[in-house]
């Protein structure tokens, strides 16, 4: 279990991480969402033992993660936001160096490097200099370089920035496979859909604090109950008649041109009312959206995730 309790990190007057508490269960993927400047990087620094918090502590299975304890740090893998590999070296040389950082050498290193190259889909490019790789290939190598020492926890800081859809998918599949194999993952991203797909639990961070955390459905429940539905009619007259009928049925409805928007709390009841009110002149289109993390984020922080 990876636990951060009461973490505080200050830079002069600025409090980058403000009494942050998170718990990541073994074999799960934990998502950390937040706009730029929310304190994600400082939090990641503390989780991987790179930064010593001013207050609080991080523990992995009861052992404190700190810059001075190399043994516990060796149980953590870190994928930085940047492509943190040597462009001058080939893929194999890079992996051999990163394996060597954890004392892995000889045939054991050869086997692990081969596994990593296979996972990254780079077996055919193992001896080519990294500078000749595409952005996606570099990202995949960046990921597997953190896996050579078989860490218990893998911390990924926006691992898909700037990659093509194919490579992004390969990274998703790799992360899903690792979690299936029992690895614990911490994943930060600007892309809501990535977190939605990969993470069991999600924390939303803003101004150094966790403003909400839970499963996706738990977070969606934080949204106000009212949802909206857009009905498009063939002309304005039909839309006007429908808006009046919906009002009489007890739904709040407004019209703009040939489009009627109505608000509801119970989707089933709303559909029944619409069917009854518009039986004589049914709408051409009906559109209603399920609550999303993007809306949750906007609701909680007042800004878009990519702000």
């Amino acid at each position, binding site marked *: 279990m990876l636990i951060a309790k009461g973490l505080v990190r200050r830079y002069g007057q600025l409090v980058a991480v403000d009494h942050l508490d998170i718990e990541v269960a073994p074999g799960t993927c934990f998502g950390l969402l937040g706009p730029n400047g929310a304190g994600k990087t400082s939090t990641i620094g503390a989780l991987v033992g790179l930064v010593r918090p001013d207050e609080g502590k991080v523990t992995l299975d009861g052992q404190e993660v700190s810059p001075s304890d190399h043994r516990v740090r060796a149980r953590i893998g870190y994928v930085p936001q940047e492509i943190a590999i040597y462009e001058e070296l080939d893929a194999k040389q890079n992996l051999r160096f*990163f394996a060597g950082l954890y004392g892995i050498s000889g045939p054991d290193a050869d086997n692990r490097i081969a596994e990593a190259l296979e996972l990254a889909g780079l077996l055919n490019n193992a001896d080519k200099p990294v500078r000749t790789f595409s952005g996606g290939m570099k990202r995949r190598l960046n990921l597997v370089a*953190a896996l050579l020492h078989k860490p218990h926890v893998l911390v990924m800081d926006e691992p898909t920035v700037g990659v093509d859809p194919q490579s992004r998918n390969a990274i998703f599949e790799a992360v899903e496979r690792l979690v299936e194999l029992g690895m614990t993952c911490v994943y930060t991203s600007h892309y809501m859909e990535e977190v939605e797909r990969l993470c069991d639990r999600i924390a939303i961070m803003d101004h150094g604090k966790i403003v909400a955390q839970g499963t996706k459905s738990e977070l969606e429940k934080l949204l106000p109950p009212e949802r909206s539905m857009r009905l498009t009619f063939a002309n304005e007259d039909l839309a006007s008649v429908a808006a009046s009928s919906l009002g009489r049925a007890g739904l709040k409805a407004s019209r703009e041109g040939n489009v009627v928007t109505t608000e509801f709390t119970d989707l089933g009841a709303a559909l029944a009312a619409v069917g009854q009110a518009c039986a004589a002149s049914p709408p051409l289109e009906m559109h209603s959206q399920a609550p999303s993390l993007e809306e949750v984020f906007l609701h909680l922080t007042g800004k878009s995730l990519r702000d």
Partner: protein
Amino acid sequence: MLPALLNFVRKDLLVFRSDRGAAITAIVMPVLLAVFLGSLFGSAGGSGEMKPVPVIVADEDQSEISKRALEEMATENHLKVTMASAAEAKEAVNNGKSAFAVVVPKGFGEQVVAGMSSGGERPKLQEYIDPAQQTAAMAGQGFVTKAFATATLDKAFGRETKAGDDLLPFKAETHQAAAKQTGDGEASRAHVFAGMGVQGVLFMAINLAMNVMRERRTGVWRRVRTAPPSLEIQLLGRLVSGTVVGSLSLTCVILAGLLTGLRIHGSLVGLVSIVLCSAAMSSAIGLAIASLGKTEEQSRGLSVLFVLTMTMLSGAWFPSFLMPEWVQKATLVVPARWAVDGLDGAIWRDIGLSGVMVASGVTLVFGAVFFAFSIWRFRTLERAA
């Protein structure tokens, strides 16, 4: 600890091998510069013999004394005398064609004789010196003065002697005090190779600093810092790989010197010692630069300025004994000065193995100070990150 250290060293050497720019800066440039400048200095006196000093003489006197002085000058191997008129002699010095000229005025011989018997006013030789060639001019002036002194003494004592030195109550024996059986040209060439070698490893240090800063910018540094090896091991790995590359650079410069006629007159042990210590010190300077810089662009400019200043003060471009005395004393705190002096000592200057080892030791101490500073500075940066 050792496998972790070797892992860093191996990686750095692989990166160096695949970086052509670094190889050019660390090896090709210093070798080319040393060979080129060495050939210029070598041509000034590569034979090991002192070249004759050209002197122009205008003898308007034509007296017994002036003729005797000219005979004396003709016996002097270190002088090449050319006769000319007074105007031509003066013009040759003004144009820089000759370092020294002397005009013997009419009546000079008579006035010398009269002065010796009655103590009248002493006659004056008119001497012209080119300030741009002071060393040659002073040598010429010395030989000419000696020739006239000999001629005057001959006249005074009524003796004819072929060797004026026999009249003096002492003999002078000339030694090239600092050098080991080398001519001026070889010593100059050897100094060029020492100086350019040290300049090369200092530029290698800039490259090392830029590599570290690039790692910090690209996140590699941060990633490596999350791994078990300590900061000290990481920096020591850099220091060792930098020492290997720096030693390779200096070795290539020295080998290029040997291939073009340079000879090692000092101890090989001393040479190996000063090469390793100079390379280690330069690597430590590179780490210190990396720990202070903010951006690569800003740091590269500042470090080039720093290295060029240090190279100049170290005597790498011209020997430190040509500088004013206070500068010579002040440059004792310039680390590269000790590296240049140590290399000079190991190659040609007669300071003995102990002298080279002292220079190596001081160079190593400077390296240790820079290395300790780098560790402290990187630790501070890490705490603030």
